[in-house]
């Protein structure tokens, strides 16, 4: 295929991409972003944010209302078949054919994807093995469990060795072991074959574990984009919580160490850029003040906080600015 002269091309490139459904819903609203070849790119966001719509446009199942979409430099609206030839797609809802066997599902799919006849059986065998379905391959899919169907779905997307794998919530309904297995497989695909992966998920630990970069969508727009570390930084630093042995009503605290977010008489929460560095400083400060410390703990922001900050922003704005910080505190406390 077209590999050598596309060294510099982006795996996925969208420019002002907009999808308006009948009834005027702006499912995707003027979105511009890039996915680099070989990266695992996460698309997060609340229900209805437009993640599935975005993926459907990439698979050329939905036509963009306006804007531009290129896959490895190829215009999706001009050459949809060439684009689809580079993709593997795992839809959000189960879509394997339950009236066929697992093997037949892969066979039909590999034929429709024009997998070379000589390689076909090997590929099917590999995909079945990869997803741990070899011993059930000859059973009708309607007798599979939900998680097995999910795994078959992924196997199906792998038989044509896609350059880009689009996974729309691939791990819903998987048990923890299968989920780990799928994560490992995804990482291996990236490492062994340099496959580019676009994944949507509501599981923040999954996104954190897998993704090189993450875009958070909200109301059809990208609200934040960056590596998990960058995103976590952007919600503010680490929270150092100091518990005192006796109540100490008013403390003035040096700004260099951090800012007090929240305090009651015996417990103080300090927002610091780097928790590990802040802890000795905090402890020195309290010793100098002759205030006895019971315990100190750090909480690092995780993707849940990132999600809450960017995805729910509109909801927050509609309530009140105070509610925003209260909610943030709530999130941190309950972590």
């Amino acid at each position, binding site marked *: 295929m077209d590999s050598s002269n596309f060294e510099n091309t982006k795996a996925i490139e969208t420019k002002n991409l907009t999808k308006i459904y*009948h009834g005027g819903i702006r499912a995707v609203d003027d979105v511009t972003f890039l996915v680099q070849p070989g990266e695992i790119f996460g698309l997060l966001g609340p229900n209805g944010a437009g993640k599935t719509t975005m993926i459907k446009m990439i698979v050329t199942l939905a036509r963009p209302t306006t804007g531009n979409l290129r896959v490895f430099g190829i215009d999706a609206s001009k050459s949809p078949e060439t684009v689809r030839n580079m993709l593997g797609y795992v839809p959000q809802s189960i879509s*394997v054919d339950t*009236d066929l*066997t697992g093997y037949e599902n892969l066979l039909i*799919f590999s*034929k*429709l994807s*024009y997998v070379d006849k000589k390689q076909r059986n090997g590929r099917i065998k590999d995909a079945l093995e990869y997803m741990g379905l070899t011993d059930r391959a000859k059973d009708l899919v309607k007798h599979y469990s939900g998680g097995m169907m999910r795994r078959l779905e992924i196997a*199906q997307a792998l038989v*044509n060795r896609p350059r880009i794998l689009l996974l729309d919530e691939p791990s819903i309904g998987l048990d923890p072991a299968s989920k780990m297995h799928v994560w490992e497989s995804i990482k291996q695909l990236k490492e062994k074959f340099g496959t580019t992966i676009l994944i949507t998920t509501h599981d923040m630990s999954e996104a954190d574990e897998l993704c090189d970069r993450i875009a958070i969508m909200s109301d059809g727009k990208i609200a934040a984009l960056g590596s998990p570390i960058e995103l976590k930084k952007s919600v503010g630093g680490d929270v150092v919580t100091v518990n005192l042995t006796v109540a100490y009503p008013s403390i003035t605290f040096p700004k260099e160490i951090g800012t007090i977010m929240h305090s009651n008489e015996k417990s103080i929460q300090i927002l610091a850029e780097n928790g590990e560095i802040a802890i000795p400083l905090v402890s020195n400060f309290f010793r100098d003040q002759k205030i006895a410390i019971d315990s100190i703990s750090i909480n690092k922001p995780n993707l849940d906080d990132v999600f809450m900050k960017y995805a729910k922003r509109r909801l927050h704005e509609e309530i009140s600015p105070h509610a925003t910080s209260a909610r943030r505190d709530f999130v941190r406390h309950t972590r």
Partner: protein
Amino acid sequence: MNIARFLSSAVTVAEMEARKIRHDTTELWIRIVQPALWLIVFGVTFNSIKAMPTGSFSYIQFITPGILAQSVLFIAIFYGITVVWERDVGIITKLLSTPSPRASIVLGKSLSASLRGMFQAVMIFALALALGVKIRLDIPDILGVFAVVILFAMCFSSLSMLLASFMKTRDRMMGIGQALTMPLFFASNAIYPISVMPVWLQYVSKVNPLSYVVDAMRSMLLSGSYENLPIDILALLVATVTFVALASITIKRLLE
């Protein structure tokens, strides 16, 4: 576009149907009940009272090709329901996300309807022979009948898919199917000769595609006079290509 790939995709979609049928043949057997009733009850009864002016053929001979055409029509016209169902369970999404051209998928689906139609034809042949209906059993005629069955099923199943792209739900397709099959059936020469119809219905019958299909099948199964055959087949072919092409353009609407 690569013709070999195009055809291989279409055949693969039909293969998918064949494999499904092999796993569960129940539907095929249920589908045979209705034409069997027509032949055994309606056909045999009217045969004995000799109420119809069917010329040199007995009534049951007369309606055997008609019932064959009718039962294939039913399968084809309602094929859109299957496709809507497949849309609902994500199979259409899956098929359309492969690199295979849309038109090859639609063509494959219409071939799938033909596959079911051919099974009907086999069963109706068997039934007719069991009832002692005299039909011509020359190899070329039988092959011709199958060719017409295939084309006819493709034609009306692609029309059905075209309609399904706009109707989008199984209920509506059920309604549309019923609204189409009954008039097509009764305003045709399937179960009575055109000559017994009121004049206005005779005109309707002349533009009714089912009449042409029945006509083609009668010429092969009964009379052996083929002068209308080329026109019948050409008309079917043109309609099939048109409907497949149109349905290929509209099928994506099913996903919206």
